[in-house]
């Protein structure tokens, strides 16, 4: 069994070597966050289970391809979860014109991520409060994009708002959130965890 204090990277290296107990360790570490993300996006416990299973099997298959320089294990894993979850809801959304993407793989991440800093200074309540403090339309637009996987054009269609308005809301919402997080002592580092799909 892996060392209790083993780093995520060490655990993932064991996963890449085919050690099932390492996969279990990784799951124990991130199961609640992964399931919360999948559940939030799919709004379906059964689908969320499938997404989490699929994501961890993806990790199992591709752990050897993980590149530390492209982001933390946590960000990599949650990126897979999120993309798989969005794929899942897209499959349930036949009217969607969006192309399906099965490529929620680590090599998509081309920018350094901020998860280590976020995890180290995480105050969930403060972050949730900062999100809640956003004006409703801004929060809605950001949540539809992040948790719904909708493009800005789709958000415009969904909310009946002009595309330009949606663009402004998303941009302003992210900037407002950034300012609120800085005020709350959670200065977002200057890099991205997402690199597009």
């Amino acid at each position, binding site marked *: 069994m892996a060392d209790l204090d083993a780093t995520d990277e060490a655990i993932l290296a064991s996963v890449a070597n085919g050690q*099932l107990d390492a996969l*279990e360790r990784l799951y124990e570490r991130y199961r609640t966050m992964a*399931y919360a993300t999948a559940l939030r996006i799919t709004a379906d416990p059964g689908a969320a289970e499938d997404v989490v*299973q699929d994501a961890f099997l993806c990790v*199992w298959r591709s752990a050897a391809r993980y590149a530390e320089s492209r982001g933390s294990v946590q960000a990599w894993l949650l990126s897979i979860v999120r993309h798989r979850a969005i794929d899942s809801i897209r499959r349930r959304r036949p009217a969607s014109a969006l192309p399906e993407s099965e490529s929620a793989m680590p090599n*998509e991440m081309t920018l350094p991520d901020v998860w280590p800093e976020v995890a180290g200074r995480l105050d969930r309540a403060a972050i949730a409060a900062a999100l809640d403090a956003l004006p409703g339309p801004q929060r809605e637009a950001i949540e539809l994009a992040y948790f719904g996987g909708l493009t800005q054009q789709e958000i415009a269609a969904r909310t009946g708002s002009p595309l330009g308005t949606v663009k402004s809301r998303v941009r302003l919402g*992210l900037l407002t959130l*950034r300012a609120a997080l800085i005020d709350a002592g959670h200065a977002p580092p200057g890099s991205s*965890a997402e690199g597009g799909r």
Partner: protein
Amino acid sequence: MTMPRFGDLTCDEVVELVPDFVLGTLGDAEAEAVRAHLTACPHAHEEIAELGGVVPYLAAALEPVEPPPELLNRILAAAASERRVALAVGPLAEADGPRSAPAKTATSGPSRPMTAPVGPVTPGPWRRPGRDFALAVAAAFALALLGAWNLSLQGQVSELTAYRQGIAAVLDAAAAPGSQLAVLAADSGTGPRGLAAVRADGTVVLAMRDLAPTVGSQVYEAWLIVGDRPPVPVGGFSVGSSGSAVFVTRTSPVARGAIVALTLEPRPGATTPTLPIVARGIASPPSD
């Protein structure tokens, strides 16, 4: 004046795409174009960092949610089935065709499909030579069981493939230190058969075939019987028309020599087995 393009995009166009880019909602082609621009463009594009730095907080704000406890076992079983035991899989793969059919997992809850495409055969680092030999014997036994089935029924190929993946999962579990392996069969010698691995931590991985499909609330209940003690139920599962199932559950660590038994129960939650026993086998370390 025309703005220079890098990666087919101007800086203004990239700025326009930044929110979608950092939120991960661009299409693949657009995201790639943005990346190409960022790689080639001499400008810093600080807006990427400015907006993108906020994104990880969105997921971090979610309240953690505990997944169902059986999900771990499903994941481990599927992962184990992908990393098959080479000794068992090689001959089986020749016998039963495609490698990509999904396995099915029966759980104590509603049965859910478990996608388990098969990856390359890679011996796991946990396998020791002596154990491998023992597993080869077990695998040979499994092969003998498989060989008895009518492989000419091509319509059952995918069913057999799913079962084969289950067998691989069982043997992988049996390869873990302290694990035991049981070969299950009906007392009559015909009918349901399969293998069960009991890991040291109490995880039980069971692969069965030729079971009669369950009807209504019926479930197959797995039992562990140690010596003269009463049978301990470890979980139940339903079976579809294929007659095969892969079942993973976890119980307390099991003493050596326990009997793994299967009964058909009218409903989940049985506390005493309904006879007759459908199949049974004695768990023992593979090296015995």
